[in-house]
């Protein structure tokens, strides 16, 4: 399981967000360059149609591959009341020919993306990962060198944290309280619930840029 929230920020404020995250997390950012292939089952395969993602980490000297399955979100009145999405998620590192395997099993490429940006990984009540990335589409199949932004000038911010059925309440609390620190720059909400950019972003960014993130917001 994982807890997740998403938001968007204008690219011009990303540097300020980075300063803020650096100050909050106390760790260095890691560069992010991930080729993501979303595969879907062909019509007759499986009792229900299914979707799986192959992620190729292009930041490594030798690209590494991961299979990720994102399952359904937790439902019910309790889940609706919290501002963080809790969903099942399973991952496995795989050797480089995993794409060939899934094609052979009856999966087809639905779409592919290239995420370029950075991430912070740190411990704050839970193990939290913040990724800030521009999402790019490929004009030609697998042509990551010729990718173009899906939404120019806008970047995606995602905060995730691994959780289990025993501890997700604490993880949700940790993620929610962390999100509050970022509130002047961007609003984070459950994936699929778009809240747009926040009006205070420009002022907050200017303040961060002038004092290097030393002042608490």
């Amino acid at each position: 399981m994982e807890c997740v929230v998403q938001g968007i920020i204008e690219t011009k404020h990303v540097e300020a967000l980075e300063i803020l995250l650096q100050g909050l997390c106390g760790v260095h950012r890691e560069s992010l360059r991930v080729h993501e292939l979303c595969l879907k089952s062909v019509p007759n395969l499986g009792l229900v149609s299914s979707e799986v993602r192959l992620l190729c980490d292009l930041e490594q000297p030798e690209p590494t591959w991961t299979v990720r399955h994102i399952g359904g979100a937790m439902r019910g009145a309790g889940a609706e009341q919290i501002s963080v999405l809790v969903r099942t998620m399973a991952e496995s590192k795989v050797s480089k020919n995993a794409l060939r395997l899934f094609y052979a099993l009856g999966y087809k490429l639905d779409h592919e993306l290239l995420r370029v940006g950075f991430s912070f990984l740190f411990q704050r009540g839970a193990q939290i990962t913040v990724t800030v990335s521009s999402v790019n589409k490929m004009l030609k199949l697998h042509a990551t060198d010729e990718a173009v932004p899906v939404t120019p000038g806008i970047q995606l911010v995602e905060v995730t944290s691994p959780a289990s059925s025993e501890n997700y309440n604490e993880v949700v609390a940790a993620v929610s309280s962390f999100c509050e620190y970022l509130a002047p720059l961007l609003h984070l909400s459950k994936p699929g619930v778009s809240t747009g950019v926040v009006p205070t972003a420009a002022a907050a960014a200017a303040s961060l840029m002038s004092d290097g993130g030393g002042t608490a917001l």
Partner: protein
Amino acid sequence: MPIKWILHWQPNPGTTVNSQILSEVSQCAESINGVKEGRWKTTLSFYKSMVREQGIGNDFPRDFVGISLAEQPGKYFLVIRGQRIVVEAESSIQMIMEKLQSYKTRVALNFEGNQYQLGDFQLRVGKVVPMHSETLRGIVMEMEYVPISSWEKSHQIMGEFFDLWKEALLKRSLPGHFVHIEPNFAEYGLPDQYGMQHTAIQYANITAQIVATSHAVQAPRN
């Protein structure tokens, strides 16, 4: 990692495997001064596609297997023999396969038995039984040579050791013999340096042989 050959017992026509043969083979390993070193186990699961409607374009692979090796419990190997694909994954891939609900495990076979050391060689002799059952489906042997990890370079010494082993076994006049099928690892895109993916392919291959043999034996009865 050290190279290994994985061999299976081919019963003579008209005969089947039985536990007496397995015990004779184990004794043979001890008689050539093999030192018993504990147990070993491999598990192979057959995956079957799940389809919404039978008979419509169901050309999904029928030879898709998943393999876990006791020496690497955190790993899981997926093999489609017909298409020469082997993928190394973490054991969590099993959970992903389950969640996708597109393939389910049909039958699982356990390969388990004793391990013997003979100088630089390791021998693992064991039975092939369906999970949750004791019905003997086959006999398997792993022959590992510790100092070498090149498939090509180890060929001669492995061949010579196998000849010695066959000779030792011949004295027991058993109704069958061990067979070594040499997979073409290059077709799977694997290098000459031996690794766990090579082991997974060998298991997928001998399992196909064991299944084919047991079908051939059962066929006249039907």
